[in-house]
């Protein structure tokens, strides 16, 4: 027995020694390719207008894409833009689901390119790589060479707040959803079946008590009717009512945090009495069969499939008219509850890590200008609508719409696929400025806009919205450890309380458990992050 272990251990020791020597030697220490702090752009660079450089410049880029077969080096969006800018990007692309894995491997083997585009890089990675010098800080370049983006930043302070990392630097460009694009921004209210309401002679509910009565009436009318359903799970329902119970007065980007209205202190809302009231209200509804009984297990596809029958009294989903041509749904009201009457919004900043420049990039100014164009009107138009005559045209009202060629492609493919022959935005993963006049999704439909306008008076103010807080690396380290447990527990308990599997008598145990999970530390870290944000 012993002898076998001896042989084993000798062999292992030898191989690990061997690999140590060989692999260790073959990994060259990272040579600092970039000339750091090279303040002056080279002669080739043109400060404004098109092209961006005098002589053709070639850069390498790595990006994530939605349609696997899309070949970016042939894509019209890029070939045309190259003609305009004189900058050619040699693209290496992967389908979005392998993005993170591939990027990590690229980073490890140090074979990353100059530009990272549509990378959906998590904030922690941005900070990590930024502090390592792998990503170049963009603050100065934005200030000098990105007039369009700079303008946006000045109009909406939340952009700078959300992009600035804990070390004070901005390393990336984000996906930014225009706060004026109501249909996209204000989506938290459900659709209500107006026909059903009218047939029962009921008024559009404005308080949570009226809401309850309406649901009961729906249910009583026909057993096939599901009074309240959701394609986003119970989460959408909870978010709809947060404002009515006085929660999340500064938005849902940091969903557990808001400001206590009396003390003006940062507050952890899952332990508040208000939150308990919210859950109790939902529990009452659920136990009386007023909420879809499958709400905790049903998939989005199943809900969309069922929605076609028109049996949902209220539903959180994409406009039923777009999906199924059901035109009798309208937006529901924001409800008044014990906590007030307002609708929290999410941050208009989507993914912030969508365009980054690495230390290998010797033309940061040109690269920044290259990206900045897409935040302008003409740039947005080209990015989302494409090329006049071919992919879009102006209709009688002066509105931009896709051409027949796109909406009814001769090959029989759907809209996304047709668009993807020329552009890359389908899938939703890109840096850019998403505006109503250029974005042709369901959110720009008049019905969706009307629903958003109905809720607008109660939506929280744009300047009150908090972006997702940014943390230092140490803070983030501690946070991830706490959050995994915290998230799991809060979500599990939320559903168990609502479903009635756990009685509200156990609420104090629930609070105590959360405290045991490191709630105090969680709040300390977030107070620090909040202070950094507030002092910007």
């Amino acid at each position, binding site marked *: 027995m012993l002898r076998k272990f001896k042989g084993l251990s000798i062999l292992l020791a030898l191989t690990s020694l061997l690999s140590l020597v060989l692999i260790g030697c073959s990994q060259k220490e990272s040579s600092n390719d970039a000339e750091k702090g090279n303040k002056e752009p080279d002669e080739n660079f043109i400060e404004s207008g098109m092209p961006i450089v005098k002589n053709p410049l070639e850069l390498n880029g790595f990006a994530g894409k939605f349609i696997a077969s899309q070949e970016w080096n042939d894509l019209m969006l890029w070939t045309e833009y190259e003609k305009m800018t004189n900058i050619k990007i040699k693209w290496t692309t992967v389908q979005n689901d392998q993005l993170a894995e591939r990027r990590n491997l690229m980073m490890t083997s140090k074979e990353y390119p100059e530009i990272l585009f549509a990378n959906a890089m998590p904030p922690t990675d941005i900070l990590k790589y930024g502090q390592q010098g792998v990503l170049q800080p963009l603050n100065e370049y934005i200030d000098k060479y990105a007039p369009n983006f700079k303008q946006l930043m000045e109009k909406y302070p939340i952009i700078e707040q959300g992009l600035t990392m804990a070390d004070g630097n901005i390393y990336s460009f984000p996906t930014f959803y225009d706060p004026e694009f109501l249909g996209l921004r204000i989506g938290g209210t459900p659709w209500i079946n107006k026909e059903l309401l009218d047939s029962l002679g009921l008024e559009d509910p404005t308080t949570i008590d009226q809401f309850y009565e309406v649901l009961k009436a729906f249910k009583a009318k026909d057993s096939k009717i599901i009074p309240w359903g959701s394609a986003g799970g119970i989460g959408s329902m909870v978010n709809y009512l947060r404002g009515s119970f006085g929660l999340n007065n500064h938005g849902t980007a940091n969903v557990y945090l808001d400001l206590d209205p009396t003390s003006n202190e940062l507050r952890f809302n899952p332990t508040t009495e208000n939150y308990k009231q919210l859950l109790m209200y939902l529990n009452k509804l659920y136990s009386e069969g007023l909420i879809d009984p499958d709400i905790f297990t049903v998939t989005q596809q*199943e809900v969309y499939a069922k929605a076609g029958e028109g049996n949902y009294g209220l539903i959180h989903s*994409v406009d039923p008219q777009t999906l199924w041509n059901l035109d009798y749904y309208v937006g529901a009201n924001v409800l008044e509850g014990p906590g007030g009457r307002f609708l929290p919004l999410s941050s208009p900043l989507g993914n912030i890590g969508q365009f980054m420049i690495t230390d290998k990039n010797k033309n940061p100014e040109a690269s920044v200008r290259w990206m900045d164009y897409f935040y302008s009107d003409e740039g947005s138009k080209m990015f989302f609508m494409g090329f006049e005559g071919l992919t879009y045209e102006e209709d009688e009202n002066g509105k931009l719409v896709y051409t027949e060629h796109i909406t009814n492609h001769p090959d029989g493919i759907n809209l996304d696929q047709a668009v993807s022959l020329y552009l890359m935005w389908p899938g939703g993963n890109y840096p850019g400025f998403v505006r109503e006049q250029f974005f042709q999704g369901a959110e720009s439909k008049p019905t969706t806009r009307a629903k958003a306008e109905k809720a607008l008076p109660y939506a929280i103010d744009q300047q009150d919205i908090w972006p997702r807080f940014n943390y230092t690396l140490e803070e983030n380290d501690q946070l991830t450890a706490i959050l995994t447990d915290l998230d799991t527990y809060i979500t599990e308990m939320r559903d168990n309380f609502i479903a009635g599997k756990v009685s509200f008598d156990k609420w104090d145990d629930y609070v105590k458990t959360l405290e045991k999970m490191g709630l105090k530390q969680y709040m300390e870290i977030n107070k620090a992050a909040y202070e950094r944000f507030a002092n910007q």
Partner: protein
Amino acid sequence: MQDTTSDKVFNVVNYIFLTLILLLVLYPLIFVLSASFSNPLYVLKGEVLLWPKDFTLEAYQKVFENKGIISGFVNTFKYTTIGTTINVILTIMAAYPLSRKDFYGRNVIMALFVFTIFFSGGLIPTYLLIQNLGMIDTLWVMVIPNAVAVWNIIIMRTFFQSTIPDELRESAMLDGCGNIGILTKIVLPLSLPVIAVMVLFYAVGHWNSYFQALIYLQSRENFPLQLILREILIQGQTDDLVQGTEESLIKQQLSVEGIKYAVLIVSTIPMLVLYPFLQRYFVKGIMIGSIKG
């Protein structure tokens, strides 16, 4: 030889039992087939029970629309045949020596092999190694890094040990046969069942694999079938990356329901054909009787 009554009872019970199992397995398989030909809306609503509802070839159309399908099939076929050949040969080359009791060091070597089942350096060092060997995006990365599976070596070794009697080997050696001769002239011909099993296991492994290709292949013309099929499924799923919802994305999600089943049928049929073909090798060994006496 007459069956006793208890044997007759046993027979009946056996057939009933196996038929029940057959039906239990068959029903969901028929469901999958029907679902692939049904309107996905009805599948989602749970209204497809046995036969297709609202018969449509749309799912299969979408699958075959994908331009990579043909090359995917060809590539997978290539990787599978070359890979399986390498696999089976190497497995034999390891299993036979390990099955010999007089092979000094067999236990140490076995332990070293087994150790690798549990402990591995992970994706990153392996990726770097493959990169340094210049195998990225080549045929070799699909057949070399997974050249042998320890499980299969063990199974083959067990088979050799328990079915090839020592006396056979000894008499062969008396006749002047060397180790290699014993392997080729005696052991292998008697081991057709386990070789058939190995071919099956490895071939299926190659046929179904996609992760290796996902990480190590870059050019689409090298992609195996599973990767191509996966693309169209991914495009119908929501992602954490996508913030807004889009109409055609939703419609695509719905059609994915049907495509899922069509993809399954398309990728599985060749494997279902392979097994009956290999089954004929599961015949009783010819030799055992000849030894006695």
